[in-house]
């Protein structure tokens, strides 16, 4: 691990930025509902691929950014994202050794936990939570995971 002396910090920030743009891009309504949480997937990827490069910091910062962009309670996405990033960093060796398909089976509950935390905070802070459509992105995120990892791997692995 430490053989790779240079942690891909710059790339982490750049890809997170791209993912943020993808997640606020205006889309037609039906597509917007099914849009995977690209920023969450990117943060997860980096915390698995480069666990020592500061995944938690990236997770917290990205979460806070999402809060601002989504007009949510400040800290809501940050807490959710930091939590699942922690799990991902902790278990990165187990997750990394799996093929992409099995990885997305692990990512599915992680995204579920993420959305559940966001959902719970929404509920506690008095926002309406009844809409079942909010859970769609958990499934679509897990579906997109193999593709996302393939793309992100290309961004940093030596060619």
């Amino acid at each position, binding site marked *: 691990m430490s053989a790779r002396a240079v942690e891909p910090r710059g790339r982490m920030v750049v890809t997170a930025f791209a993912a943020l743009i993808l997640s606020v891009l205006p889309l037609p309504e039906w597509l917007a509902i099914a849009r995977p949480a690209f920023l969450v997937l990117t943060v997860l990827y980096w915390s698995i691929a480069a666990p020592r490069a500061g995944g938690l910091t990236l997770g917290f910062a990205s979460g806070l950014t999402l809060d601002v962009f989504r007009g949510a309670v*400040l800290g809501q996405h940050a807490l959710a994202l930091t939590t699942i990033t922690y799990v991902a960093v902790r278990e990165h060796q187990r997750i990394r050794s799996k093929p992409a398909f099995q990885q997305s089976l692990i990512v599915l509950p992680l995204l579920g936990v993420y959305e559940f935390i966001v959902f719970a905070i929404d509920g506690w802070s008095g926002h309406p939570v009844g*809409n079942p459509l909010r859970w769609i992105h958990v499934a679509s995120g897990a579906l997109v995971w193999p593709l996302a990892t393939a793309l992100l791997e290309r961004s940093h692995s030596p060619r």
Partner: protein
Amino acid sequence: MFLDQRRGWLEQARYYLSAAAYPLQLAVSSPTAAWRWFEESVETRQALRAENDALRAQERVLEMRSLRFEALSRENGELRGLRGALPPVADHWLVAEIVNVEVNSLQQRVLINRGARNGVFKGQAVMDSAGLLGQTIHVGPWSAEVILITDPEHALPVQIERTGVRTIAVGTGDTQSLALPYLPANADVAAGDLLVTSGLGGVFPQGYPVARVVEVRRDAVQPLAQIQAKPLAQLNKLREVMLVWFRPDHPAGPTLSRGQGQSTVEDDLASGNPTYRPQPVPPRPAPARASASASVPTTGAPQPASHAPASAPGSSEPAAPPSRAPVSSSASASAGGPA
């Protein structure tokens, strides 16, 4: 951490964070903006002339109507026993453009390109030429987030223009419909009724058009009628909106005793301002808050309507004053009984 946020000290942090976010939001929306600009610049001369003619015709119609308006407002002033006509309730306004960015796919929020630097404040009314659109909820230095009236989290005190009955219009999450969930089944509502703002709630002034009732369903089992209304403003094809500043001392103005501009929910709650009513989401089925109307002589609204809700389900008092019109007391009784 989050609970502190409810008290508002993180509002300042959000202000600066949204300033940082704004350039990115602009960048994301720039392709759409560029395409729009391109479309406009390659428009043919003929199309422009046609549009010009249409606008001129419209201007003529509006001019005719405003001639009449002058006379009417003078007459209105005389009828109310005022010496002169009042100035219009809207003090000034500002046109803002929608920044084409996804705020939240499950909520009806939009971002506009005006913020605190333009004098925009939290809880400001946003409208378009046809009717009410919503209000600002987060304000950054150069941008502001607007919650539309159709957002499920938004509730708007309205009045049925024909009868003067006050109630609350709640967003449904669909840009084409508002719900009026708190009217009893025997309330006098019909499809085609115009809903105007009632002036309660401290954000919107009295008498601005909001929506038109499209469907009234009365179920014999249910104590409340199920009413759908369609917003007059074109909420799904927004491009430009108007931010409006109202005269706070105007009788038709929003019922907010403090000077507008600085007042926030926290301020008013902390100072114990009794006339302030937080805007979004009513705590329970209470069609209108009668107490808030005390400071304002609202026009022509029959009193029974505003008193009926005081006896809404939950309050232990027996129904509204019996001296009031029998319709409303029976209405409130039927609303209170089974619920």
